[in-house]
């Protein structure tokens, strides 16, 4: 009885492919595991914990060098349980500046996992966030973005929670195979441990690289600070314009209300909350 049940559960497990990229730390620019992709892997690990027998394969398309290897090992270090099947990851080797989409699409079509999890957008390169959509279009699979959690997988249908603004959630049912993309709303990735990361291996698969010629023509520069939009004052007279300009510097100091009734104080706060549009 018991082994039967176990076997049944084993069969219920699904094949999950997690696409990972090389991240970039926002302040130092150092290579690291990408925040969103790591959350994607965390999601996959959560599915595995729920559905024993789930097989996770990790996939990265890119070149192989020391700094990227260290970043990729950041994902492999998340295999901190026993027998998590993250001992190795597939590296679709292609030189820098190649288009990752054809290589990934080809590999996914060949291995046909039931669920593909990716981060919403990359931390390096174009980072347009088009990749999951391109894969969905290539493979003809449904795509759900901004995933918060996977609730259950049953009979080829997955029930998901999608994140909405302000911490709200929406429940969706999606037919497998499907692609889901993950952003900051998904649960944070677990700590990456040095030991498992060091032991893991890479299965390197050569690809026929296609250079991203369009990207090469564009002009790339470090992001400039965007000018902060000034409050547009449609003033009828010079005096109003002056007043509007003057009141800005005035507001910087901060207003202190002493000796007011609670109602007056509350009124002032209420006005500010209204102005900032945080009351809903």
């Amino acid at each position: 009885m018991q082994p039967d049940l176990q076997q049944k559960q084993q069969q219920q497990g699904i094949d999950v492919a997690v696409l990972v990229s090389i991240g970039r730390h926002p302040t130092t620019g150092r290579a690291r595991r990408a925040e969103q992709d790591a959350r994607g892997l965390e999601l996959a690990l959560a599915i595995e914990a729920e559905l024993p027998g789930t097989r996770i394969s990790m996939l990265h398309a890119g070149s192989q060098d020391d700094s990227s290897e260290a970043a990729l090992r950041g994902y492999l270090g998340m295999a901190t349980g026993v027998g998590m099947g993250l001992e190795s990851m597939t590296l679709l080797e292609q030189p820098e500046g190649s288009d990752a989409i054809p290589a990934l699409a080809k590999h996914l079509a060949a291995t046909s996992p039931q669920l593909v999890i990716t981060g919403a957008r990359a931390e390096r390169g174009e980072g347009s966030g088009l990749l999951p959509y391109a894969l969905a279009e290539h493979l003809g699979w449904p795509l759900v973005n901004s995933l918060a959690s996977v609730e259950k997988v049953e009979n080829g249908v997955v029930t998901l929670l999608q994140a909405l603004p302000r911490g709200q959630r929406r429940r969706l049912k999606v037919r497998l195979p499907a692609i889901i993309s993950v952003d900051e709303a998904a649960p944070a990735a677990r700590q990456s441990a040095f030991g498992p990361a060091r032991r893991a291996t890479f299965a390197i698969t050569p690809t026929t690289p296609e250079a991203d010629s369009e990207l090469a023509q564009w002009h790339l520069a470090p992001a400039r600070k965007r000018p902060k939009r000034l409050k547009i004052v449609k003033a009828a007279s010079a005096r109003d314009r002056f007043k509007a300009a003057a009141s800005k510097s005035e507001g910087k100091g901060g207003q202190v209300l002493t000796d007011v009734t609670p109602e007056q104080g509350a009124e002032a706060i209420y006005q500010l909350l209204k102005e900032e549009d945080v009351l809903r």
Partner: protein
Amino acid sequence: MLETLLPILIFTALALAVIGALRRIRLWRQGRPSRVNLFKGLVALPRRYLVDLHHVVGRDKMISNTHVATAGGFVAAAVLMILVHGLGIANPLLGGLLLLASASMFVGSLFVARRRLNPPARLSKGPWMRLPKSLMAFSISVFLITLPTVGLLPEGLLEGSSSWLLALVLAGVVAWGLGEMFFGMTWGGPMKHAFAGALHLAFHRRAERFSTKKGGGRSTGLKALNLEDEATPLGVEKPADFTWNQLLGFDACVQCGRCEAVCPAFAAGQPLNPKKLIQDMVVGMAGGSDAAYAGSPHPSQGLGGKPVGEHAGSPHGPIVALQGKALVDADTLWSCTTCRACVEECPMMIEHVDAIVDMRRHLTLERGKTPNKGAEVLDNLIATDNPGGFDPGSRLNWAADLNLPLMADLKQVDVLLWLGDGAFDMRNQRTLRALVKVLRAAEVDFAVLGTEERDSGDVARRLGDEATFQSLAKRNIATLAQYRFLQIVTCDPHSFHVLGNEYGELGGIYDVRHHSTFIAELFDAGRLTFAPWKGGSVTYHDPCYLGRYNGEYEAPRNVLKALGIEVKEMERSGFRSRCCGGGGGAPITDIPGERRIPDMRMNDVKESGAELVAVGCPQCTAMLEGVVDASAEVRDIAELVADALVERSADDVSGASRQTTASTAAEEVIL
């Protein structure tokens, strides 16, 4: 009758003791190898015992004398007994000595018994409660059976058929005594401490910590993990992952509970009792459950202590379970502030902090289970070289107006000022400004690394992330190798300790000084002049990483004295100083307890009656200033010195002028 019985009894006990010893040795040898010079260790044993161990035990004169009488008496009695009664050398001189020895032991055991009448909570009960009786049984019985040897009793007294019963009873008591003292010594009774303790002293993992004829030894830096060799386990997962002499050390524990009495985490009600932790390791080494433990348990919120008997382990089973319970709960290991108070107090020279960090290494490096903010801090250290995740390029932003000389420009200076991560903390920036002011006043030739500096790796290492520590340390060493300087001065005792005591193993050997030491030197050299102290009463809090880790207790006090401050000492100061709760990553892992450690420390300050507490560590400042409704102000020594600085006229540096300042200062205090 006794003549025939005694040798049998003695040699049976000795034989059993040898078998037990071999069994015990086999338990220790489950551990990983550790290179120790066995012969040298054995030769050094008497000195280590008589000088170093007694230096610790001697802090409590009563116990020290008791132990000298009891243990000395026992060792002498045991040897003489084997000679006199075992081998039958009925020499009256030997017999007399034996009488003397057993009498001394008996007197000692009376004091042991007295202490056990109403034992303090820190002492373990259980088998330990029978020890005074066993000691008495041994000493009295040995005394009695020896009386005929010296002829104080007629030889025939025990011969007659009437005294058959008496002889039998005596033999029984002798057997009891021998059982406890010989058999129990190696089979796990309370006397195990003597056997394991002696060998632990001889084969200690840190031979450097013992004094030599040249002077006192000290060894407080953590040992590096070999990351090059993939076969070396990353930390300790199971008891057998400790080195054999660490296991031996655990076995030496006498369960006196001195560690428990000084442990800040235990006092705060966090789930750590260092004594219990060591006993847990002993249980794990032998296999079994902790049900037999008879001391205070690990505290537990709302329960009055984690129940004993629920945890069990084996030499090759995990210490911390992936799920559920094993030998120790993870929060026990993360409660430690690595303040070394337990190590400082331990009469058996057990290294608790090493063991805890070894186990943390496994949790962090293999399991990725650094609790609470730990993972975030480690990620920050990897990505930004500082625990706060700040832009490393902004390390010198606080000093934009100070025009600090940079090492990169000067290449060669007398003093390299190591800023530490306090450079990112608004509070500590005040201390740093003060220190710069002092250095400039004393016209010290100094420079900073500026943005080339990285975190020293202290926090990463205490959180068990040896890989990140070594990465930071190696890069810092490479940076420092580019420049020439005579010494490093820092106001962060953690950096001080790591740079001075832990970088050496990785190839960075520096002369490092805490700013209080350096300021004291500057003052002694007449390069600083202070205005008399006008404030209220002051106490001084010894930072663990300055005091216990590096033995610097005097310099900060000398600086305060130079300022004209008479320090009102707290009850726990110097080597017994109570931790602020900020070390070992404890504020990051943040294990809940009943109280907060800094609150307790501020209470110590309050009890001293001081209005100001001088500190010498950014962590201590942050922790103590974080106490709500504190009765005393917290100032770094550098700030106090900077405030008292007097512009020095070129020729006014004579000793006489200093004396007047000192005396006026004294008057001020009286007023």
